[in-house]
C-alpha cells in the first residue's frame, strides 16, 4: 500500500499524465464574482502592516532567544526557548508563504528579504519551494500534480505524527540540501523547477549548509548545545504549531476538483493565532484570490461569504472533522468531507464526474 500510495501522488508517476489528459492540470477554477473596484481595494499593498508585524515577530524571537541564553543551564530557560522555537520553527511557515507570494509588503525587496530568511528558518529551498507553491496554486490537490499534498489518502500517519517534532522533515531537508549542493534536483523537483532557475537552488543549498556547519562547529567548540538549539534545532522542537495550523488547510477534503470550496478550509482563529499564522486561516479566500495581502483577507472573507460554506468556528471544530475524516480515509479512499454551501451560493464547479472530489481512478472516470 505504501509504495502504491506514494506512486499515485508522485509527480513522476502515471497520475501526472492522466491528470493532464483528463484536463485537470491548469484547469479553470471557480472564483466568486467580486466587483473590480472592490477587488482593487482588497489587492492594494501597504508596507505598514507587515513592517509592524515583522518587527513584533523578530522582536519576540530576539527577546525569547535572549532570555533563553540568559537562563541557559537552568530549567528556567525551557519556556523561553520553547516560545523561541515555536516562533522560529512554526510561524516562519506563514511568513515564508506570504512573502513568497510577494503580498506582505508593497516594497519588493522587503518581501524578498523576509522570504529568504523564512525559507532558511523553515528549511525550504526558496527557489524549489517557490515553484512548488506555484504548482500548488495551479493544481491544488490534483493528484500527481500538486507537490504539496500534506495528507494523502490513506494518510501516512506515522510521518504526520513524527513531523510534529520535525523527525521526517528535517532529515529530508538536509538530504535535499546535500543533493542540491552537489548540483542535482529530485525527479519531482525537475518537473516544476525551470532549468534557468536551478543554479539558484544549488547556490542557496551551499550557503545554508555552510551556516549549519558553522553552527555545529560552534557547538563543538563551545561544548554546548546552545548554538544548535538556536539555529536549526527549532525546526524540530518548535515545529508542532506549523502542522497543527497546516493540516487545517486541505486535510480530508476533495481531490481532483476545480473549486477551492471543495478542497480548502477557512477556520476562524483568535487574534493570537491569526498573528502567528498571518491570517492563513482564511485559506479558501487566499486560494481563490492569491493577490490579496494577509491583512485584507478578513475583509475578503466577508465579501465572498455568501458563496462559501460557513467557516469553521475554531481550530477545535476543524479538528473534530479532520481527524475522523483521516481515520475513515484509511479504509475508504473515496471518502472526503463535502461541505454544504449557503442557500443562494454559486453551485460547486464540477464540470465532470472526475471533479466531484472522490479522486476516482482517472482511467475509470474517463471511461465513464
Amino acid at each position: 500500500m505504501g509504495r502504491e500510495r506514494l506512486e499515485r501522488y508522485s509527480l513522476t508517476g502515471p497520475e501526472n499524465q492522466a491528470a493532464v489528459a483528463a484536463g485537470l492540470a491548469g484547469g479553470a477554477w471557480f472564483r466568486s464574482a467580486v466587483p473590480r473596484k472592490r477587488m482593487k481595494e482588497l489587492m492594494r499593498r501597504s508596507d505598514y502592516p507587515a513592517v509592524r508585524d515583522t518587527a513584533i515577530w523578530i522582536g519576540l524571537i530576539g527577546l525569547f532567544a535572549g532570555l533563553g541564553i540568559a537562563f541557559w543551564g537552568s530549567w528556567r530557560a525551557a519556556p523561553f526557548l520553547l516560545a523561541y522555537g515555536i516562533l522560529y520553527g512554526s510561524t516562519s511557515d506563514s511568513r515564508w508563504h506570504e512573502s513568497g507570494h510577494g503580498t506582505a509588503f508593497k516594497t519588493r525587496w522587503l518581501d524578498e528579504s523576509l522570504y529568504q530568511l523564512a525559507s532558511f528558518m523553515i528549511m525550504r529551498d526558496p527557489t524549489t519551494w517557490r515553484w512548488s507553491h506555484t504548482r500548488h496554486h495551479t493544481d491544488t490537490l490534483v493528484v500527481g500534480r500538486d507537490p504539496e499534498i500534506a495528507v494523502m489518502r490513506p494518510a501516512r500517519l506515522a510521518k504526520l505524527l513524527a513531523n510534529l517534532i520535525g523527525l521526517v522533515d528535517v532529515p529530508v531537508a538536509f538530504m535535499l540540501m546535500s543533493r542540491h549542493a552537489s548540483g542535482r534536483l529530485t525527479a519531482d523537483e525537475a518537473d516544476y523547477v525551470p532549468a534557468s532557475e536551478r543554479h539558484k537552488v544549488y547556490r542557496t543549498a551551499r550557503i545554508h549548509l555552510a551556516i549549519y556547519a558553522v553552527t555545529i562547529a560552534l557547538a563543538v567548540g563551545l561544548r554546548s548545545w546552545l548554538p544548535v538549539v538556536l539555529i536549526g534545532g527549532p525546526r524540530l522542537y518548535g515545529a508542532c504549531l506549523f502542522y497543527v495550523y497546516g493540516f487545517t488547510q486541505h486535510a480530508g477534503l476533495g481531490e481532483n476538483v476545480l473549486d477551492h470550496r471543495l478542497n480548502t478550509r477557512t477556520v476562524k482563529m483568535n487574534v493570537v493565532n491569526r498573528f502567528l499564522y498571518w491570517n492563513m486561516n482564511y485559506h479558501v479566500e487566499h486560494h481563490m484570490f492569491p493577490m490579496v495581502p494577509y491583512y485584507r483577507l478578513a475583509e475578503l472573507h466577508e465579501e465572498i461569504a455568501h458563496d462559501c460554506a460557513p467557516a469553521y468556528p475554531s481550530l477545535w471544530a476543524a479538528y473534530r472533522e479532520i481527524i475522523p475524516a483521516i481515520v475513515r480515509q484509511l479504509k475508504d479512499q473515496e471518502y472526503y468531507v463535502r461541505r454544504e454551501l449557503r442557500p443562494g451560493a454559486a453551485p460547486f464547479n464540477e464540470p465532470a464526474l472526475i471533479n466531484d472530489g472522490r479522486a476516482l481512478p482517472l482511467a475509470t472516470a474517463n471511461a465513464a
Partner: protein
Amino acid sequence: MAHWITACEADDIDPEDVIPFAHEGRDYAIYRSPDDTYYATDGHCTHEKTLLCDGLVDGGTIECPKHNGRFDYTSGKALGAPVLVDVRTYPVKVTDGTVYLDVES
C-alpha cells in the same frame, strides 16, 4: 506598417488600472499608468495564460492574479519568477479621447 484599431475610450480605464480588450480572437490588456500614459500588452500572462486584466496595477507593473508574477507593462519585461518570459507589448495612441492599438506592430 501600423494598423491602428479602436480599443476603448480613454476614460474607460481608471488611472493605475487595466482593462481587457479582445480583437479577432486575441486578448489584449490596456493599461493607464498613474501619470495617464496608456500602454498595451498581450492579454495573458506568459507563465500560465491567466488573464492579466484581473491583476493588480501598481505604478508601472502588472501583477498576475494567479501566481503573482510581475511584468513591467511599459516594456513587457518579466520581473522574476514565476514569470520568466517577457509579455509582448503593442504601441498605443490616444486621439480625441479614444485609445487606439497597433496590433500588427
